């Protein structure tokens, strides 16, 4: 294994850094100063090395080897099995749906917050609550839903008593629609947090300038606020997509059998005791997920860069 790789980066970074300190008395420090910057980034490199690149490397290597350590591409052809393709489809559907719902809901909420008093109680409450809810997940969240809108949940029973049965054809909470519903619970607050800065960047003068130039609300949204917010909105939606695409704990707590979505399939393949364990296949699935998330976050970064140049 090539584990010490990040360490090498660390040593060379620190090495050139001390040169810079020694040379600090010299008047021109152009490239030397750059070295100092690298020193500051060392912890970041260690962190990403240990928790991002190393696992990725393990996954790449693992997905390309058999149990006996020989090279193979069979794990990748294995993804084409119908139950895995279906899991990918489900993962993408859930992520897209919960991202779309979360994005719209979160954006509307963020808009309400942004147009209110910047130091008001509403804004402070909503943003700090969102900070908490966006991190809420796993067993606790799953249980909260089961206890309220599950088949024996208080909300379900109450509404059923009052003539509204939202499980007319059986319980869907433990299936895809249920996952979408639960994911929205953290997607909406996450959207609020990531989208609010974009809304705050919108200056009131832009609306007033539009008005004084003869435009109404429609023109403002169509030509000014819309185009200004669209890249950020799309970018944040992609972030939400990546967020739910890689979510595991909540689904695992809610769905105890079968692998509806890819992360659950990976878990099954890694831990199955019935002889079906296939760590190589699990790793190739993980790699496929990494690729999807990579594409999505790249798009997100590009979109964010576009806005940040406007709203300086």
């Amino acid at each position, binding site marked *: 294994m090539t584990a010490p790789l990040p360490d090498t980066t660390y040593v060379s970074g620190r090495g050139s850094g001390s040169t810079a300190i020694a040379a600090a008395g010299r008047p021109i420090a152009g490239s030397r100063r750059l070295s100092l910057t690298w020193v500051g980034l060392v912890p970041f490199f260690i962190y990403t090395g240990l928790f991002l690149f190393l696992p990725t490397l393990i996954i790449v290597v693992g997905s390309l080897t058999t149990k006996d350590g020989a090279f193979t591409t069979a794990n990748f052809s294995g993804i084409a099995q119908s139950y895995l393709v279906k899991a990918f489809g489900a993962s993408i559907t859930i992520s897209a749906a919960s991202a779309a719902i979360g994005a719209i809901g979160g954006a509307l909420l963020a808009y309400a917050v942004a147009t209110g008093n910047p130091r008001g109680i509403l804004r402070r409450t909503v943003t700090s609550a969102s900070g908490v809810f966006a991190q809420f997940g796993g067993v606790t969240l799953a249980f909260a839903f089961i206890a309220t809108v599950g088949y024996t949940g208080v909300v379900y029973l109450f509404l059923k008593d009052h003539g509204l049965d939202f499980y007319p054809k059986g319980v869907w909470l433990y299936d895809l629609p249920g996952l979408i519903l639960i994911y929205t619970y953290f997607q909406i607050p996450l959207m609020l947090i990531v989208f609010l800065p974009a809304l705050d960047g919108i200056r009131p*003068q*832009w609306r*007033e*300038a*539009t008005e*004084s*130039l*003869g435009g109404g609300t429609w023109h403002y949204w169509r030509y000014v606020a819309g185009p*200004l917010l669209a890249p950020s909105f799309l970018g944040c939606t992609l972030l939400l997509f990546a967020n739910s695409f890689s979510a595991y704990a909540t689904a695992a707590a809610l769905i105890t059998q079968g692998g509806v979505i890819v992360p659950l399939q990976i878990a099954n393949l890694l831990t199955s005791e019935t002889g079906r364990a296939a760590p190589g296949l699990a790793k190739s699935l993980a790699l496929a997920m990494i690729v999807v998330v990579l594409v999505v976050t790249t798009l997100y970064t590009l979109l964010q860069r576009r806005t940040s140049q*406007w709203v300086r």
Partner: protein
Amino acid sequence: MTTGAAGPGRGVEVRLDDLQRRYGNATALAGLTLTLAPGELVALLGPSGCGKTTALRLLAGLEEPDSGRVVVDGVDVTNVPANRRDIGMVFQAYSLFPHMSAMRNVEFGMQLHDVGPAERRKRAGDMLELVGLSAHAHKYAHQMSGGQQQRVALARALAIEPKVLLLDEPLSALDAKVRSRLRDEIRRVQLEVGTTTLFVTHDQEEALAIADRVGVMNAGRLEQLGPPTTIYSRPATPFVAEFVGLTNRLAGVVKDGEVDVRGARLPLVKPDTPNGPAIALVRPEAVSLVVDGDMVPGPLIGTVIATAFLGATSRITVDMGDGTVLAQMPTSEAGALSAGTRVRLALRKDPVLIARDESKPTEA
């Protein structure tokens, strides 16, 4: 809309009639009445918080008055929304649309007015040329300096050929040099297109330099409205006298329509001022300094402590023992007055104003 910049004579009359506006308990405007003649540039001058921006926003229709009327070109527009008032505005904070090039910014208003693409591109080009930015037409706000952005904002406001142009401290974020150049440029453009213009500023130099008439505001009201020279040389109220230009505050005694300042008797702007101790407001220009042999210590004798060369004139600070007095005189005459020179004050017998009550001296 008509075609092109139509030149002088296009302006309309604008009337603000007893405008009142409160925000909670704070009174922003306490009955503002002001009439702008067609094509005129009026500068609203006043300290921070006196209601200048509020006046502008009420005229633009961005806010509604509690009472009073806004009349543009003979039509009462008090209840007309901003986007149908045909009033161009340049904001204090930069307000260009950041996702549009300078050209697109200028075109945008015309697009909202259904001007065809070819026509509006041509006119946007003309407007950018008018403000001297033809070479920057393709640039975005973040690629331009503050001064350039405000010029584009001016072009954008003028491109729709508004009936009235409003400028809210458009230059306040710029450094002094750019500011004075740009203010002259705004004036040139305004004279060229002839749009009635209200220019808000808290910089008196700017107001006096650019305007046909200056309106000095204080606490939501207009204190005085008049040509710059009048505002400066014949301030109607103590507030105006102290706010515009430099003023010496000299202790004196009012007696029978005159004020006795250090033994010199000066006429009063308001001869009916009651007798008693008072502070006379005397412009530095009304103070000259003489050097002669006989410097017997007395109330009008002092010592030069500083000389500031202002170009054609110089400003001299004189220590009178109980305070300082500023004198402003032609540099040619001030040459000999180096620091330490003993001088005698000579006060010109211009009518003077008495400072407001709160500043009355306690001693006789």
